[in-house]
């Protein structure tokens, strides 16, 4: 079609295929002008439309009795009883964080916060799942410092505590760091707001920061095409202003509390375009706006730029005409603009006027609902069935040395260097400080508490994406269980390579199936999340990295369990069974052996039985500490329990399994929990386990100030707690204070 209004180059720059262009032409009833093409380009992008992923995401379990809002809104909503709901979501900001780590991560925080308060919830907690390349590379250190400062800067300033998270290191993230940000808000069930316009004649108000040229999709193309004064190429990463967002939070929550608006939507990806199409699409209306009225930071902006700018800290509000003065007054109190830029119409179209002429006139449903969904070709991942060389691997000569190395490995080492930079206590709800497997918040005016965690393991998912997906769910739930919480809802962030490659698409499909299966088994619904494709640089893709954000409910906040040993002489019980499962382990990584076999098996029935056993024991008030062996296995798990103990109480454990000793100590078999009870209560816990057919045995006692671990009475590990803790505490800060290479 050579007679097209826009040539191939323009379409390519907009990532619109010829077929998509023909579809757009059909839907609009004529060829789109450049601004309209920009709108479709943004809204039909992978990021906004999920066109490669939605056929697979549809298979996820999204329904459960407690779900108030599943996928499709800004965030998911779960009912937690007593008239309260939680609003939560996780989102990636991977690409911007590589280009400009500080602002990339900061605006990631800002974006997810808006997704939460736009629904009427006050954000009360943030968590981050971060992945970087190895820290002996100065570039990776600088990315990590930038990302952590960016999160710190934005979260601390706005006053939402960053209560937990995870940080992993692997070579595959060197050129593609992952920054996944989770936010949770609390709201009253009858005060939830949605992105809608309601009735024709309602006013459309623009509130918050002014619009600039930052983050414009295809901005470079636009200037080429018009041949106007060529602007210096703007960075694609937006700049965050947490102060502005703090004002926006307060003003928005105020107008929602007073119920003087009808609908609200944040301007995130695709900016004004996204909100002016999604809001009317949900209400079956249209919207007409005057672009000249949009508050602008820069002179001479084109309609294209105004509509596609991704300037931060902006929201769109729909209000009845009689509500407008009160809305304006509420925003004026916080020194924020609230400008009426248009109204709700009946024709189902987005119409934009600029200098008096109509520059956009397209059906909103075409933009929002009619993007084609792709069944991209995929290849079933080749999954190894057995570890070929395991039996030939030599046993370690010095188990103490292996444990010391594991404790100093950045993935396992203490992360205080990171979380000390985050205000994790503001809002005074943080009942469990960062460092445990899950964060715990009290809920004011209730006996209940909330636990939350973000988890994923790219190494398992690389070996077997389906198992990796399951393992992420299983581990997240286990982390919640260990503090005494029952999982109630899921959000996910799926980080993968290029979906146009059948291998990557196959990984994605399998991981989604695995995590869906696991959520179904646990009876918890996926309420939303985010897919991040194209995590590839120079043709190298990251390991498939599904990250799960799971929230749990604690019935009695006074019964929260923590990982630290509580007293000398307590019985240490291992729930679950050890096996020779090394593949994908941190142990193989630190001894420098490649992982080639299947990752640790995830048996969902056993996993659930183990977790239910723990929850029942906690409910009976028996459990004094609980922690699950994950990276680094039982040895690291026991060490953590000692490190978290204020008195640095050690333990003496003895395992009698007929297995390789390194598997028992450092293997990463799933569905295991190490817990302590008063000695007289051990029998009762074993009974609870037996009732569920869960393997359980007393493996030792707490006491002394050393970590002692034996196999068949042979002492393999004997380390003073204080010395081991020092390694674990200092490993991460040492990389930044005394770089090991430069």
């Amino acid at each position, binding site marked *: 079609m050579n007679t097209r209004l826009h040539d191939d180059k323009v379409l390519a720059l907009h990532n619109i295929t010829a077929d998509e262009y023909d579809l757009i032409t059909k839907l609009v009833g004529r060829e789109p002008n450049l601004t309209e093409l920009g709108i479709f380009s943004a809204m039909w992008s992978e990021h906004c439309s999920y066109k490669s992923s939605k056929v697979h995401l549809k298979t996820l379990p999204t329904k459960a009795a407690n779900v108030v809002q599943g996928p499709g809104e800004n965030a998911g909503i779960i009912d937690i009883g007593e008239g309260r709901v939680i609003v939560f979501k996780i989102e990636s900001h991977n690409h911007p964080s590589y280009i400009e780590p500080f602002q990339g991560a900061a605006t990631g925080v800002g974006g997810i916060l808006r997704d939460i308060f736009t629904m009427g919830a006050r954000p009360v907690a943030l968590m981050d799942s971060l992945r970087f390349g190895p820290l002996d590379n100065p570039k990776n250190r600088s990315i990590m410092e930038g990302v952590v400062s960016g999160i*710190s800067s934005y979260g*601390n*300033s*706005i*006053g939402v505590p960053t209560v937990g998270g995870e940080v992993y290191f692997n070579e595959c993230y060197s050129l593609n760091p992952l920054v996944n940000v989770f936010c949770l808000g609390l709201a009253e069930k009858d005060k939830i707001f949605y992105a809608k316009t309601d009735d024709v004649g309602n006013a459309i108000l623009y509130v918050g920061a002014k619009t600039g040229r930052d983050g414009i999709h295809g901005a470079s193309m636009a200037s080429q095409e018009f041949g106007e004064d060529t602007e210096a190429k703007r960075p694609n990463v937006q700049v965050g*202003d*947490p*102060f*502005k967002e*703090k*004002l926006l939070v307060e003003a928005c929550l105020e107008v929602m509390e007073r119920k003087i608006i009808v609908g609200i939507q944040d301007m995130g990806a695709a900016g004004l375009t996204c909100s002016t199409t999604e809001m009317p699409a949900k209400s079956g209306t249209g919207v007409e706006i005057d672009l000249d009225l949009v508050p602008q930071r820069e002179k001479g902006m084109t309609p294209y730029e105004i509509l596609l700018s991704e300037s931060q800290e902006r929201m769109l509000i729909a209000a009845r005409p009689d509500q407008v003065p009160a809305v304006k007054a509420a925003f004026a109190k*916080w*020194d924020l603009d609230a400008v009426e830029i248009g109204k709700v119409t009946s024709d189902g179209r987005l119409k934009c006027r600029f200098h008096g002429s109509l520059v956009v006139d397209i059906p909103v449903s075409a933009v929002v609902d009619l993007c084609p969904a792709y069944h991209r070709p995929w290849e079933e991942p080749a999954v190894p069935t057995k570890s070929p060389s395991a039996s030939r691997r030599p046993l370690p000569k010095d188990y103490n040395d292996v444990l010391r190395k594991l404790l100093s490995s950045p993935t396992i080492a203490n992360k205080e260097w990171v*979380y*000390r*930079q*985050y*205000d*994790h*206590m*503001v*809002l*005074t*709800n*943080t*009942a469990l*400080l960062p460092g445990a497997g899950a964060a715990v918040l*009290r809920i*004011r005016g209730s006996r209940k508490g909330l636990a939350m965690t973000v988890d994923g393991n790219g190494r398992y998912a690389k070996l077997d994406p389906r198992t990796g997906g399951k393992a992420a769910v299983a581990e997240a739930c286990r982390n919640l269980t260990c503090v005494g919480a029952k999982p109630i809802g899921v959000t996910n962030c799926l980080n993968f390579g290029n979906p146009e490659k059948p291998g990557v698409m196959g990984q994605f499909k399998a991981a989604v199936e695995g995590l869906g299966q696991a959520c179904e088994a646990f009876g918890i619904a996926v309420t939303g999340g985010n897919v991040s494709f194209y995590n590839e640089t120079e043709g190298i893709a990251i390991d498939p990295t599904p990250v799960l954000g799971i929230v749990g409910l604690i019935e009695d*906040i*006074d019964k929260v369990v923590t990982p630290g040993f509580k007293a000398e002489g307590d019985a240490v019980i291992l729930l679950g069974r050890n096996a020779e499962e090394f593949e994908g382990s941190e142990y193989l990584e630190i001894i420098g052996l490649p992982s080639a076999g299947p990752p640790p098996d995830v048996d969902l029935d056993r996993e659930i039985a183990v977790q239910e056993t723990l929850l029942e024991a906690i409910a009976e008030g028996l459990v004094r500490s609980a922690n699950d062996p994950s990276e680094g296995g039982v040895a690291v798990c026991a060490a953590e329990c000692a490190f978290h103990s204020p008195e640095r109480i050690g333990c003496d454990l003895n395992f009698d399994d007929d297995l390789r000793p390194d598997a028992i100590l450092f293997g990463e078999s799933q569905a295991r929990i190490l817990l302590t009870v008063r000695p007289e209560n051990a029998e009762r816990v074993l009974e609870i386990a037996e009732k569920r057919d869960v393997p359980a045995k007393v493996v030792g006692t707490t006491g002394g100030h050393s970590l002692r671990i034996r196999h068949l009475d042979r002492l393999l590990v004997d380390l003073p707690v204080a010395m081991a803790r020092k390694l674990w505490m200092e490993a991460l800060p040492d990389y930044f204070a005394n770089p090991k290479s430069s």
Partner: protein
Amino acid sequence: MKFGVVVFPGSNCDADAYHAFRDVLGKPTTYLWHKDHDLKGVDCVILPGGFSYGDYLRSGAIARFSPLMREVCEFADKGGLVLGICNGFQVLLELNLLPGAMLRNKRLKFLCQYVTIRIENDKTAFSRKGTKGQVLRIPIAHFDGNWYAPPETVKEIEDNGQVVFRYCDTEGRLSEESNVNGSLNAIAGLSNKRGNVCGMMPHPERAVESILGSEDGLVILRSLLEKIS
């Protein structure tokens, strides 16, 4: 005894202070909007933590120009009780109600953690429920808490007994390590000469309930419950 918590744009510990005084201590408490010129008859003004005006320019530097600060200064001049916590302390320094200035923390990182502080003067309105030498476990959360003043000012406030709290270890000893942000003389909190205005970097309002890990902040907040005679 009625408490007023000032709300600046960017304050983010205002609700925590409000909760501590109203819900935990059960005292009448009200918010004071920074644009008003009305202290609503409160007996004690709390300048809360946060990032007033985004802490742009310099921590507390813009907040000092808020309309309500005129009334706060007059209130302080008449002997009214004013407690500035964290950002509130920074605002008091900018208002010249307290001496000195804040530098960035010594290791140039934001610090959120529990610290231990020692009561240096137990005669003040902010510490009289404690005893001299008592060690309190209270969180900090700040980037600019490294208090600095010229030597003659430091001598003066030390001589006058204006140092209310000092960073110390859990045993109450001073050390380089326990002075986490590098403040001169490990000063964590200080009062004016008259003793009715106090600024402190640690957050007592974060340490008033056992579920959150410490109730030591109650020593400070309860000290405020009696009017100065």
